[in-house]
């Protein structure tokens, strides 16, 4: 009896050890699969464009938004006082204004210099010049602007901060950057590139899953009521009301589609067969949000993050498949 038990125990231990080793291998293969730097290039270019558009869209309101005695908005002092209560370590524009005052610079000058530096950093990102420094400057100044104007911030600002954070920790420069041509840096660690892309992919999955699941929990998205409210709510009411009424019957389907696309993203974006269609659906959803609700910057940043996370490989793989099919058909 003892012999049998000992025999079974000895067999069970290697079995469990094998299983642990298999899981470990799978996890390492999943997290550290070698990847190219095309996603970094997409992220860099996309964020450069996003930050440049952000700066240009606010060029007339920059001082009104962030000045101490703001005209039309909430004073920066109030926002920063509340931020200090929450956490004194979070970067803000007030720090630069205080440092500038030691040099005898006015608040207006400092705010203008900040705007110029942010736009400059965005242009450098687009060119791929001094990538890391530009990414850090863009992240810091954008974060300061967002935090100093916390009352007027919305989802787009958070997503831009998220993207810039991933960019500053990403292995820069990429092959398409000017830096690569100028300085000829060392070869990149492909596993590091793969791992960081994986983190961005997992983050995107969490974003859509939680966004989708909370929508699914409300009845409005299933009945089309939330779609109606979203499209008629000022200032997102771009579509004329008569046109919207004539398309009323489609709204429940669109609402359900939004719930399914967002919640299903976590599952279907990983499966090779559904990845392409799911990515196209998500990109289509963001294009539609931009066009029908006027949330252009929000759409741009979401498209950039999606393309960086899942674009390389998906679209290239799909076009390769189409090419092969055409070749087969020709033959």
């Amino acid at each position, binding site marked *: 009896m003892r012999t049998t038990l000992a025999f079974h125990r000895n067999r069970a231990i290697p079995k469990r050890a094998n299983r642990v080793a298999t899981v470990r291998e799978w996890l390492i293969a999943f997290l*550290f699969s070698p990847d190219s730097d095309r996603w970094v290039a997409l992220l860099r270019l996309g964020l450069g464009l996003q930050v440049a558009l952000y700066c240009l*869209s*606010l060029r*007339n*309101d920059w001082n009104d*938004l962030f000045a101490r005695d*703001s*005209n*039309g*908005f*909430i*004073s920066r002092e*109030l926002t920063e006082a509340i931020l200090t*209560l*929450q*956490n004194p*370590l*979070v*970067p803000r524009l007030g720090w630069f204004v205080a440092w500038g005052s030691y040099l005898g610079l006015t608040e207006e000058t400092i705010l203008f210099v900040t705007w110029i530096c942010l736009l400059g950093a965005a242009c450098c990102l687009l060119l791929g010049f001094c990538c890391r420094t530009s990414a850090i400057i863009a992240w810091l100044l954008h*974060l300061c602007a967002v*935090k100093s104007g916390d*009352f*007027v*911030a*919305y*989802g787009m*600002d*958070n997503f831009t*901060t*998220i993207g810039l954070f991933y960019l500053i*920790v990403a292995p820069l420069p990429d092959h398409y950057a000017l830096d690569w041509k100028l300085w000829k840096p060392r070869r990149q660690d492909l*596993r*590091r590139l793969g*791992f960081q892309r994986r*983190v961005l992919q*997992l*983050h995107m999955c*969490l*974003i859509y899953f*939680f*966004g989708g*699941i*909370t*929508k699914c*929990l*409300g*009845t409005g998205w299933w009945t089309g*009521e*939330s779609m*109606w*409210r*979203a499209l*008629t*709510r*000022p*200032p997102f009411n771009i579509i004329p009301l008569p046109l*919207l*009424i004539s398309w009323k019957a489609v*709204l429940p389907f669109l609402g359900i589609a939004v719930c399914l696309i967002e919640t299903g993203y976590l599952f279907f974006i990983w499966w090779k067969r559904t990845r392409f269609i799911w990515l196209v659906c998500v990109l289509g959803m963001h294009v539609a949000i931009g066009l029908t609700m*006027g949330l252009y910057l929000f759409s741009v940043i979401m498209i950039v993050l999606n393309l960086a996370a899942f674009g390389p490989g998906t679209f290239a793989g799909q076009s390769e498949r189409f090419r092969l099919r055409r070749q087969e058909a020709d033959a």
Partner: protein
Amino acid sequence: MRRLYTAACVLLLHLFLVLAVSCQQTLWILAGGYTSLPYSLDKYWYKAHRLITALLGQTLALSNPVREGITAYIHSTGIEGGYGFFAPGVPSSYKLVFELHYDDGRVEYELPRVNGVAAGLRFTSLLDQIGRTHYDPLREVMLKMLAYSTWQEHPDAITIRAVFGYVDVPSAIDVKQGKKESYNFLYAYDFSFPSQSGNSQTR
């Protein structure tokens, strides 16, 4: 390889924080009874929400270095908010109207003005923030700042009344029957600026 694993641990910790913050917001929505789930579950969601809040160090003292560190990190990486935009439903939009009272008894109505589309979107966020604020003195200060900028354009107004409310958009069927959007009153504050002292009242 060791450096890579260390970086992996740090980034996985980052993902854990993303997950925790997202769960916290979802559980807050569930605990608040804003969903179609049974109310009997609310207490469990609330308990889970409290657990996640404690896990994120938000039950510690404000000056606690652990709390300060976590808060600074999640703010700096842009992960401090959840992702439940327009969820579980789309809220009503808020509206602010200024009532300008002149010496001769004249009354004018003015809407807050912004320069461009981007500023308009941001102003909507600001109105949402004011609408969500439960702390009355803060709401009053925010409205006073907005009223002040209107007063700068109309310096001869003796009193400015800031009327804050929300707009109820009718359903598609109601619109078809000719129903228009309605404005619902929430708060009103009176401000007088010439003496540089805000004299405010809540109605």
